[in-house]
């Protein structure tokens, strides 16, 4: 399509504005964490690292971070196993209900978090409570794993679709057993997709708030919940600013690593 000069300039301006809108709020959080004021007003009166040093010693935020990391690791581990199993089933087999399986995998992330949250909450409290298992870190991990499966599944299934099963067949023709072929041929092919999927699953779990609200027991506070609870407290505002700024900076990591690991993830979103 041949675009006129004006059309090109208009598109360039539009895209530039779009990118500005995408990045200005994130930059604002970074600048605000350096503002000496307790309340957010623009423009800031100066710049200081004071609140960063205050935030480092904030025990509430540190504990919440640690809980988030544990929940993320647990959910990622489960999602890696289950997501990979489904990906192999869907990509390497044809069976009745295959479409339904991929539909059900997407469902936990397509439905509103609050619905998933109260469903899991009432199921846990009716089934697990009589068994003596209360809501706690364990139930948070189970809840998170449920919607993290889809990220692993998508990464692995995309990779499997691009790598033909003939590699494995060739290995077996050469005398390798199913397990040997998997270990020497299939696994190396999907390894980076697994890493990327796992990383994105961790990031997704790390960010979750709604399902966490309904599956966390008393005393289990993840970082998003800590931010949400402290966001409206003027006393805590500077620390919340710093934590938010740290999270903005950290969000570059999963993208960077996933980008290095596999070309699939370049265009794959959370689903």
């Amino acid at each position, binding site marked *: 399509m041949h675009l006129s000069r004006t059309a090109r300039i208009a598109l360039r301006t539009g895209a530039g504005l779009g990118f500005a809108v995408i990045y200005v709020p994130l930059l604002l959080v970074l600048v605000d964490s350096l503002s000496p004021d307790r309340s957010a007003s623009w423009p800031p009166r100066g710049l200081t690292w004071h609140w960063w040093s205050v935030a480092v010693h904030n025990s509430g935020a540190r504990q919440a971070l640690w809980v988030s990391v544990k929940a993320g690791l647990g959910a990622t581990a489960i999602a890696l196993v289950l997501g990979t199993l489904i990906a192999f089933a869907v990509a390497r087999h044809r069976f009745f209900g295959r479409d339904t399986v991929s539909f059900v995998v997407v469902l936990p992330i397509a439905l509103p978090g609050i619905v998933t949250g109260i469903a899991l909450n009432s199921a846990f409290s009716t089934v697990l409570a009589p068994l003596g298992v209360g809501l706690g870190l364990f139930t948070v991990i189970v809840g998170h794993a449920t919607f993290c499966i889809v990220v692993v599944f998508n990464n692995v299934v995309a990779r499997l679709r691009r790598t033909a099963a003939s590699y494995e067949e060739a290995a077996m023709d050469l005398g390798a057993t199913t397990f040997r072929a998997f270990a020497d041929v299939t696994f190396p092919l999907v390894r980076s997709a697994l890493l990327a999927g796992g990383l994105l699953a961790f990031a997704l779990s790390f960010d979750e708030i709604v399902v966490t609200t309904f599956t966390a027991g008393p005393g289990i506070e993840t970082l998003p919940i800590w931010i949400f609870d402290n966001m409206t407290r003027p006393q805590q505002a500077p620390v919340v600013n710093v934590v938010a700024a740290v*999270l*903005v900076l950290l969000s*570059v990591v999963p993208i960077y690593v996933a980008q290095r690991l596999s070309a699939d993830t370049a265009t794959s979103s959370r689903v």
Partner: protein
Amino acid sequence: MTTDVRTAAGRRTVRRLAGSLHRRPRLRLTLLLTAPLLWLAVLYLGSLAVLFVSAFWTTNSFTSQVVKVWSTDNFHELFTTPVFRQVILRSVGVALAVTALCALIAFPVAFYTARVARPRWRPLLVVAILTPLWASYLVKVYAWRLILSQGGLADWMLAPFGLSGPGFGLPATVLTLTYLWLPYMILPVHTALEQLPAGLLDASADLGARAGRTFRSVVLPMVLPSVAAGSVFTFSLSLGDYITVQIVGGKTQLIGNLVYSNIELNLPMAAALGTVPVVVIVLYLLAIRRTGALNSL
């Protein structure tokens, strides 16, 4: 010596196991699917099913205890109480507005990143769109709280024009949600535009179509399935949201808030309210699936 014998026997067992696995694809499939299906079907779908069944229960108005007697009272109340109707309509309206805004903003951005920008820059631009997607949801809402708060960036920017920012309320909610879900729309549209064969555009030009006509008759029909795919996220994520509304919405209420405020006092009512977005979204997903848009997610 004995270890050798044992490993040889072990190897033979592995070989036999592998052989039988290889010969029986059904068995392999069953082994692959059992654990994940148990998790998703029993734990997840099971919980959902129980929740929806409980939408037909009622509560004792004195004790707030759930009474497990089948009735459609909750749904009757849902459709006849003006407040509920208003909130449901408002939520659907917000979701539609957010989707429309996302599509409008996404198109020029995606068109630029996919076809106008130098090819060398394109992967970088995609990363630039992706990065904020992984910035924390709460942090992004928090950023908008900072922008829209009194004396914040919005007020400061509009002050020279004698205006003030929108403050917290319904417009702030729509704005923030649009910001949150925008990457979900840009990415599929970018992918679709990138995959558009250049030959088609040339052919259209050869046949005498100007840019506008090519856009309407060639580009748009081929990109629409991707817009539909992106809209699944913008629509469903907006429909169920209640955190953003709590942070920047002022007194605005959406379905999510109603569900949330009913959980403690009247779980069956909360469940009934929760079915509304679920039904809407499942219908939407099924409709989208027929167009094949889900495969391009």
